[in-house]
C-alpha cells in the first residue's frame, strides 16, 4: 500500500471520553503543545470518577484533581471540549483521519450563567442517573455541583412540554434554546485516543445476589453516591428500605467479576473499593459491624497492602474468605442474610445484616457497542492496542480494568503514542 506522503499532517488529536483517562490524555498532549478535541457523550467531564466520594488509598475527593484538570483546560486554548458528543465515524489512516461526530442538543446555549432559574420553575422530576436513580432531579438540571462545563441541561424528556416553555421564559439570558437540534461535525485529526471507560456491571443480572429484588442490597457505585456530600442523602449512609442507619453491612466481593457467567476477569478496583467503603461506614457509625466476603483480597503493592493492614486493625471489620452463594431477605425487617461457603473450612456461613453492598465490577463501555474505533476488541469488550500500526489507541479502562493511578499512567503514555503518530508524518 502506498501512502500519500504529501498529505498535510494534521497536528490535532481527538480524545474520545472525558473521564479521568481521557482528561489526562487530552491535557498531557495539549500541554506539550498539540491541539486536542476532547469528545464526551455526557453533558459534563469527569466521567466515572466524578461519581466517587473518595479515592483509595488516600481517601481524598476526586473533585480536587478534577478541579485542577478543569482549570488546566480553562487555561489552555489548545483543548476544545465537546460535550454531549459521540463519534459516528472515523476514516483515514495514521496521521490523517477524518472523524464525524454527532452533537446532541443540550437545549441550553453558552449564554447560560448557571443561575438555576430554569430548574426553579421546572416541575417535572426525572430520575437522576448520576445518583443511579436513588433520587430525582428537575427536568432542567446541572449534572452535579462541580460540573464542567458549568452549564445547565434540559432533559429531552421535557422537550415539547409546558415545563420546557416555563424554563425558557424563566431564563433572563436567553440561554434556553428549545429549537436546538442534533448537529454533525467533521474533525480533521492525526491521531485518536479512545478513553471510553467503563460501566458498572448490571447487578440485576447476577440472579443469586438479589439486586433489584431486595431494596437493602445496593452496588458499590451506589454506596459512593450515598457517601458523597453531593449525593442523594447528602453523605449519610442510610439503607434504602427505611432510611435507617445501618448497624451491620456486608460487602460481597466479586459480584459478577471472576465469574465465567458474567465478567470472567478481575475488575481490579473492587477489593480496594470495599476496603475504602468500610472506612466510609466506620467514619459515620463507629460501632457498625462490617463483613467482607472475598475470594482473594487484591491489595497488592506497598500502598494497598498498607491500607488493607489499617482496615484489618479494626476489630469490627470481619474478613471471610468465601464467595457468596445466595442472599435472602426477612420480609418483615428487610434485613438480608448472606450465605457463603468458607473456602478453607468448607463451612456454610450465614450472616444477617442491615444492608449489603455488592462489589460489582467494571464492564468496558465499548462492549456491545459498535464504535468506529479501528481497534480490535477482546471477547470482553476491551480494546487491544496495536502499537505497530499506531494512529489509534485505547487508554485507561477502555483498554483494561485498572485503578485511577494506573489509568492515568496509561493515559499519559497514550498521549505520547498519539504525538509520535503526528511527528512521524
Amino acid at each position: 500500500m502506498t501512502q500519500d506522503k504529501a498529505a498535510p499532517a494534521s497536528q490535532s488529536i481527538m480524545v474520545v471520553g472525558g473521564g479521568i483517562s481521557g482528561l489526562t490524555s487530552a491535557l498531557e498532549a495539549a500541554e506539550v503543545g498539540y491541539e486536542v478535541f476532547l469528545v464526551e457523550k455526557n453533558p459534563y467531564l469527569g466521567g466515572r470518577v466524578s461519581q466517587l466520594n473518595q479515592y483509595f488509598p488516600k481517601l481524598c475527593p476526586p473533585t480536587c484533581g478534577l478541579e485542577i484538570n478543569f482549570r488546566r483546560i480553562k487555561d489552555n486554548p489548545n483543548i476544545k471540549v465537546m460535550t454531549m458528543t459521540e463519534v459516528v465515524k472515523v476514516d483515514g489512516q495514521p496521521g490523517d483521519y477524518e472523524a464525524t461526530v454527532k452533537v446532541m442538543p443540550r437545549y441550553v446555549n453558552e449564554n447560560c450563567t448557571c443561575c438555576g432559574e430554569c430548574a426553579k420553575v421546572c416541575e417535572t422530576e426525572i430520575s437522576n442517573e448520576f445518583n443511579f436513580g436513588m433520587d430525582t432531579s428537575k427536568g432542567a438540571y446541572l449534572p452535579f455541583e462541580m460540573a464542567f462545563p458549568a452549564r445547565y441541561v434540559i432533559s429531552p424528556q421535557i422537550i415539547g412540554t409546558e415545563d420546557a416553555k416555563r424554563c425558557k421564559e424563566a431564563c433572563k439570558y436567553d440561554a434556553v434554546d428549545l429549537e436546538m437540534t442534533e448537529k454533525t461535525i467533521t474533525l480533521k485529526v492525526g491521531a485518536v485516543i479512545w478513553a471510553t471507560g467503563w460501566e458498572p456491571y448490571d447487578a440485576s443480572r447476577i440472579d443469586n445476589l438479589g439486586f433489584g429484588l431486595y431494596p437493602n442490597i445496593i452496588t458499590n457505585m451506589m454506596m459512593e453516591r450515598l457517601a458523597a456530600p453531593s449525593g442523594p442523602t447528602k453523605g449519610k449512609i442510610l439503607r434504602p428500605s427505611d432510611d435507617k442507619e445501618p448497624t451491620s453491612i456486608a460487602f460481597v466481593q466479586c459480584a459478577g467479576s471472576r465469574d465465567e457467567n458474567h465478567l470472567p476477569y478481575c475488575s481490579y478496583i473492587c477489593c480496594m473499593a470495599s476496603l475504602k467503603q468500610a472506612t466510609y461506614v466506620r467514619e459515620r457509625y463507629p460501632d457498625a459491624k462490617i463483613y467482607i466476603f472475598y475470594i482473594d483480597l487484591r491489595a497488592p503493592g506497598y500502598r494497598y497492602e498498607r491500607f488493607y493492614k489499617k482496615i484489618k486493625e479494626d476489630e469490627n471489620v470481619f474478613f471471610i474468605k468465601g464467595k457468596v452463594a445466595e442472599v435472602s431477605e426477612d420480609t418483615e425487617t428487610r434485613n438480608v442474610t448472606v450465605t457463603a461457603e468458607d473456602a478453607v473450612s468448607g463451612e456454610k456461613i450465614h450472616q444477617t445484616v442491615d444492608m449489603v453492598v455488592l462489589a460489582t465490577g467494571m464492564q468496558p463501555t465499548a462492549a456491545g457497542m459498535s464504535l468506529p474505533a479501528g481497534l480490535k476488541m477482546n471477547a470482553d469488550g476491551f480494546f487491544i492496542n496495536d502499537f505497530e500500526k499506531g494512529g489509534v489507541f485505547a487508554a485507561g479502562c477502555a483498554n483494561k480494568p485498572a485503578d485511577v493511578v494506573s489509568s492515568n499512567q496509561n493515559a499519559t503514555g497514550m498521549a505520547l503514542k498519539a504525538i509520535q503518530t503526528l511527528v512521524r508524518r
Partner: protein
Amino acid sequence: MDKKYGVYICKGCGIGDALDIEALSAVADEEGLPVKTHEFLCGKDGVAVIQKDVDDGINTLVIAACSRRVNTDVFRFPGCIVDRVNLREQVVWSHPRSEFPALTEDQKDDGVHFDRVQMLAEDYLKMGMARVAKVDLPEPYKVETLSKKILVIGGGITGMAAALDAAEAGYEVTIVEKEAQLGGHATEWRKQLPLSDPYERPIAPVVAERIKAVEAHPNIVVKTETVVARIAGEPGEFIVTLKKPGEKIEFDVPFPLPDEMKVDENGKELDAEALHKKYMEYNKGKKDILTLDPNGEMFGAVILAAGWRPYAPAEGELDHLGYGKLPDVVTNVQFEQMAKSGKITRPSDGREAKTVVFVQSPGAGDDSDFAYTGAVTSMVALKQAGYVREDYADGKAYVFYQHMRTPGLSENFYKSMQQDPGIFLSKGEVVGVSKNGSGLVVEADNTLFGDKIKVGADLVVLATGMVPVTKDDPVINLAYRQGPGFRDNALFDDYADSNFICFPYETQRTGIYAAGGVRRAMTVEESIEDAAGAALKAIQCLESVNRGVSVHPRSGDMTFPDFFFQRCTQCKRCTEECPFGALDDDERGTPKPNPTRCRRCGTCMGACPERIIGFADYNIDSIGSMVKAIGVPSEDDYEEPPLRILGLVCENDAYPALDMVGLNRMSFSAEVRFIPVRCLGSVNVIWIKDALSQGMDGVFLLGCKHGDDYQCHFIKGSELADIRMKKIGDALQSLALENERVAQFQVAIDDYDKLPQIINDFVAMVEDLGPNPFKGF
C-alpha cells in the same frame, strides 16, 4: 505598562437585585476609575462593552461578576491585567437578603444599622481595584541555552522503553547504564509475563529485541558502565557529569550537612559562612553544587528508570522458612537465574528438582505478602511454577498464597496456569520449612487441601520483593542545596513514587520523572507503559521551559519568583522551605533561583521575613494592598461596629468549596473577607499582622489536609503554614492579642457542606473574645 483602568459590574444572576449597584459603582468612582454596569456582562453584548474599551486602550480590568472559576474564557483579554471580583458566589448567593436584609430608608446612615452584604461587595470591589494597581503582566522566563535532550538513567526494560518512546517522538536521548550491557534484570529471565491480550501464557523475553531497537535508533546514545555523578542546573539546562561506577571525582555530588553538624558546640546555629566552610570540609574533594562542570553534558529533562534490586532478607528474618539455612530454599530471583541457565536442580546437590513449593507470603500470623512486592510477584510465582512443568513431565509445583494477586486481565494468566494438572494452587499460611532426609518439607495451615498439611519438596521458592534502588542511593545525584535525592521517599517505602493519585508523575523535583520498578513493583507490561508516560512528561517539561511557562500544577503560568537581593539577610528560609528545591544558596547564604525548577507555589514568598520575593501578578504588596483595602468600621462609624475577619484561602480547594457554598445557596457570616492564595505556603505572616494591626478581629486560613496523605498540591504548603501560624502566637501576644484570633482549618474541596459552620464558629469565637482593641487607630 501604563495602566488604564476600567471597572465592570455585572447585575445579572441576582447581583443587581441584592446590591445597590449605584453605591457600588460610586466606590470605583471615588477612586477615579471609570465604571460601567451591565445586566448580563458575560453575554455577547456585555463582553463587547469591555472589548470596545480594551480596543480603546483600557488594559487593567476589574470585572465584578461571578467567580473566576467560571467564564474564564469569556473574560480573558490577552494583554490585559484582569481581576475577577466574586460578587455572585461569594457575596449575593451566599448571603441571601432573606437572612441579611437590606436597610430601610430610615435605617440608612443612622449610625446604628449597616448593610452587611453591601459592605461585603464594596470591600471586594475595593480589594480587586487595589490588587490590579499592584500587579503586572508576566513575562516568560527563558533559559539561556535550552537543551531538548533527555537523559535516561537505567538501561533496563523501563529505561529502554522510555528512550525509544522519546526518540520516536523526535527527541535525542542518552541512556546511562551502570552495567556493561543494556537489559537489566530482564536478561536473566527464562520467560517473561505476557504483554498483551489474552494475557494467558508466559512469553519469550522481549529484552533482546528491545536492546537491538535501542542500539539501532539514530536518536539514542547508549553509555554503559556509566552512572550519574551529579546533575546540576535546572530543567532545560541540566549540566550532567557522568562517570564510571565506583570512580571518585571532584564533580561527585556533595551531600548536605547533617543537622547535628549545623550547630556549634553550644548548640547555636552556625552562620552562613561557617556553615559553608563546614559543608566543604564534610564534602572534601568535591566541588560545591554551584560550581558547574565545564565538561558536563547538557540535558533538558531526566527520566529515572534505575529499577530495583532483589530484596535481601536480613539474617534470621526468614528463619522459619529455612532461608539462609537450607540451601534448597531460594528466592524467586535466584530461582529465575537457575531456570534461565538450564533445567531446575537443587543447589544442595545438583539433583533434579521435580517438586517445588512457591511461597507467596512469609506468614507468621500475617496475611501480607513479602516486603516490596506487588501483583507482579504473584504472577512471577505462577510463571515459575510453569518452569517446573516444562522441565519435568512428572514435575509438581505448589503455590501457597494468602491472596492470589492477579488483578484485572492478569486473571487470565492465573486461570490459564490453573489448568495445568501439575500446578497446585492453594490459599494457605506456610508455617515452616524444614529438612527431611535429602529433601525439604513444607508445613502449611488452612489450605484448600486440608487444615494442616505437609508437602515434601525438592526446592522452596520465596516470592520476595523488588526493592527500589532509591532506597540505597539517591541515584539522580542532584546538585541541589536541599540534597541529591527525591525528598520524602520514606512515605512511599523508598520508592520514587508520586503522592498524587490523579497525577502519577508528580515528583518533588521538576524535570525528573521516575518510571518502572523504581516507582512501584511492576510487571514488564506496566513498566513499558509507565515509561511512555514518564517520557511524555519529560518532553512536556522541555516544551514548557521552551515557552517559559510552569509545569503542573500551575501549568502555563508565566510568572516566576523575583528576588530583591539587596535586602536579603541570608536567612536561608526560602532555600530550605521550597518544596521543589528550586533555590540554591551560595557560600554567603544568598539564594540563587532556578526558575525552571520552580512550580510557582510561592512558598518562598511566604517564608521570607524580609518580604523580598514576589511574582508579577502575586506578591506581598498585591495581597497586602487587598488586606488594607478592607474597610474596618469602628465605634466612630457605628454604635456596635461589625467584626472584620480575614480568610486566606487555598485557591485550588478551599476557594472552589466556597463557590459551592454559594451555588448551593448556603450562607455564612458576612463579616469575613476572603482572599484566594496560590497555596497556604505562600501566606506571609505580614498580611496577618497587617490585618490585625489595622483593627481586623481575626484571621483564618483554609487549606488542604497535611500529614502523610497530604492533599496539598505543593507538598508542604499547608503544613508550613500551620507551623508558621503556631509561631505567630508570640507576635500576637506582643500586640496583646489572643492566640485564638489566628487559626488554620484543613478542608477538602468537597467539605463545602461543613464550611459555613467552620466559618461561623470562628466568627462566634472571635465575637466572644471581643473586638480587636486596635480598631479605629
